[in-house]
């Protein structure tokens, strides 16, 4: 009898593995749940970013100035709302229940409470006081801005110029200026979600491999015309196709292919190969279900760091940048959120490719050793 071709053998093992996967309720349900959950959460996240800071004011004698402020005649990005009292303002900033009569007023992040004689004191050149209430989530730069805003207001009321001449400043935005067009929470989460979808399939593959080793069915394969290389190739393909399929479904469902679709596709393929390699390592190293989960998590944590890091653009340290998944995550971010071209994404993809080769090599080596020493 003539031995069958390598392709036929790999295809037979692959077919068997997909059948085994489809009958493993745990992973099928877990994968489907994860996919649906992430898609739903994605669409529930805000699609836009409101860059306006709502500022509440409480005063006694601002008069026309208050009307000008609330009419929107202040700095861009600041919306002013008038509150009837200092206490009502405090409650709004603190997020507490409004006082009677202030139910219709919005919740503000910043509050300016002017002293009762503020206007008179300022115009007479006397010292006065403005209390700035700030919600805990307000970033420091906004707090500083409020300080300057009050100072400007005081000098304006006094009919004087600022005591110092502001130095000439020039702000140069390198790359695309995202002011007024910031990346939404939804877009921020997309790379993280996509990477989670990819990595969860590495657990499924690890489980399949561990089961095959534990039951010694892999030994039965290796006394047929199937070679160790055929088994390894089938496992790598299985893991890649599983992860790739899930990730594609997710990315299509979240309409991710609107930027640089080609680069995104390449990134997802590389990510899927990475997930397969991790699955092979975890599957060969773990002796049972818990063992594979342990080794899977051991890889999951460092690989997920760049994905979490993408939530805070520009925060990645050098250490994070050398992690295997950094290139994949950054390409997903660049291709979907910023529509970056191949020139910008090429080096990141190259790095991901190099890591894929290394991890896949390691996965092959560990699994081959495991199989041959059974």
């Amino acid at each position, binding site marked *: 009898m003539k*031995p069958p071709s390598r392709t036929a053998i790999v295809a037979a093992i692959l077919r068997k593995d997909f059948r085994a996967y489809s009958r493993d309720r745990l992973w099928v349900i877990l994968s489907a749940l994860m996919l649906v959950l992430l898609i739903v959460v994605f669409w529930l996240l805000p699609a836009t970013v409101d860059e306006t800071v709502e500022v509440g004011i409480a005063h006694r004698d601002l008069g026309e100035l208050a009307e000008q402020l609330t009419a929107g005649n202040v700095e861009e990005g600041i919306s002013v709302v008038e509150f009837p009292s200092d206490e009502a303002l405090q409650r709004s900033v603190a997020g507490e229940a409004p006082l009677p009569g202030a139910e219709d007023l919005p919740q503000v992040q910043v509050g300016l409470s002017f002293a009762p004689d503020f206007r008179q004191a300022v115009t007479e050149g006397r010292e006065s006081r403005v209390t700035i209430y700030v919600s805990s989530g307000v970033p420091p730069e906004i707090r500083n801005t409020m300080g300057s805003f009050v100072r400007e207001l005081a000098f304006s009321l006094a009919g004087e110029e600022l005591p110092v001449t502001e130095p000439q400043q020039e702000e140069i935005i390198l790359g695309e200026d995202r002011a007024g067009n910031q990346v939404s929470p939804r877009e921020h989460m997309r790379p993280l979600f996509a990477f989670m979808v990819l990595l969860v399939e590495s657990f499924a593959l690890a489980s399949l491999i561990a089961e095959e080793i534990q039951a010694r069915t892999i030994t039965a394969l290796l*006394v*047929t015309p199937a070679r160790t290389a055929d088994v390894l190739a089938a496992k790598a393909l299985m893991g890649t196709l599983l992860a790739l399929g899930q990730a594609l479904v997710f990315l299509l469902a979240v309409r991710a292919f609107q930027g640089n679709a080609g680069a995104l596709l390449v990134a997802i393929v590389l990510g899927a190969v990475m997930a397969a390699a991790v699955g092979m390592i975890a599957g060969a190293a773990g002796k049972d279900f818990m063992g594979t989960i342990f080794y899977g998590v051991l890889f999951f944590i460092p690989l997920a760091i760049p994905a979490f890091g993408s939530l805070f653009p520009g925060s990645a340290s050098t250490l994070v940048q050398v992690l295997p998944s950094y290139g994949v995550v950054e390409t997903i971010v660049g291709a979907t959120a910023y529509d970056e071209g191949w020139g910008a994404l090429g080096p990141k993809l190259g790095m991901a490719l190099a890591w894929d080769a290394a991890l896949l090599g390691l996965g092959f080596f560990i699994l081959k050793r495991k199989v041959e020493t059974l």
Partner: protein
Amino acid sequence: MAAATSASERTQAAISVEDLTYAYGDLVAVDGISFSVAPGEVLGFLGPNGAGKSTTIKVLTGQLSPRSGSARILGQDVGRDRPEVQARIGVCFEEKNLYLNMSGRENLRFFARLFGMPRFDPDPLLLRVGLADRGGDRVQGYSKGMRQRLMVARTLVNHPDVLFLDEPTDGLDPVSARTIRDIIREEAARGAAVLLTTHDMWEADELSDRVAFINEGRIAALDTPENLKLQYGERRVKVRTRVQGEIQEELISLDDPEAGERLRAAAAKDLLTIHTEEATLEQIFIRLTGRGLQ
């Protein structure tokens, strides 16, 4: 010892092993063994746990590469022509390494694909091992005996010319064990060479054309069960007679010049039973190696 293989035997043998050695690090598991198995012959491979039986099978089925010596299956070198060899052998492992979440039928079809038989019909084989009505059920619902019968069916998927059967009836119910023994006989009758490892001396005696005693990686004896018994057993009979209402037993050695006379004398009395007292294979093994088979 009949272990040595002549040149003519080697050319005709389905399995031909010459001075085969394998070691796990410093531990020599197989130490220069030589034997051959002809087509249609069943060779019983007997020895206690750790004697080197499984390692020998692993080398012969291409799972391990020998440190030295040669192993040829159907004239082909196992190490060099592994794919060709493995296409023509069937291996039944001691552990029931089946895909539990697949049906019996799916298990057989999958292995048939690995042998390049995409249109394989598993039903005749399932019928042969008595699983025709359970072929569509997942293996996880099978009993131990059913799993073992499916293991044997899987071994036969590619109509192998050489069978390696590792403890195929171990711990099975009598019906399943008989089914498997019948299949071994049928395969041998078809012309397949069978290398059978077993702890069951009765089974080895019943099925094997020859048996090899393996101990500490070496073959201690290799011959037909009959010859071994003649060579190492005692030629004697136990005669039980009733004399004046009392039962008496007498052991008569057949090598005794007066054996005929003594038997006639016993027959003249109230003869109850005569039993031959030949040694069992286990007794011979213990005598040769100084250790038991379990």
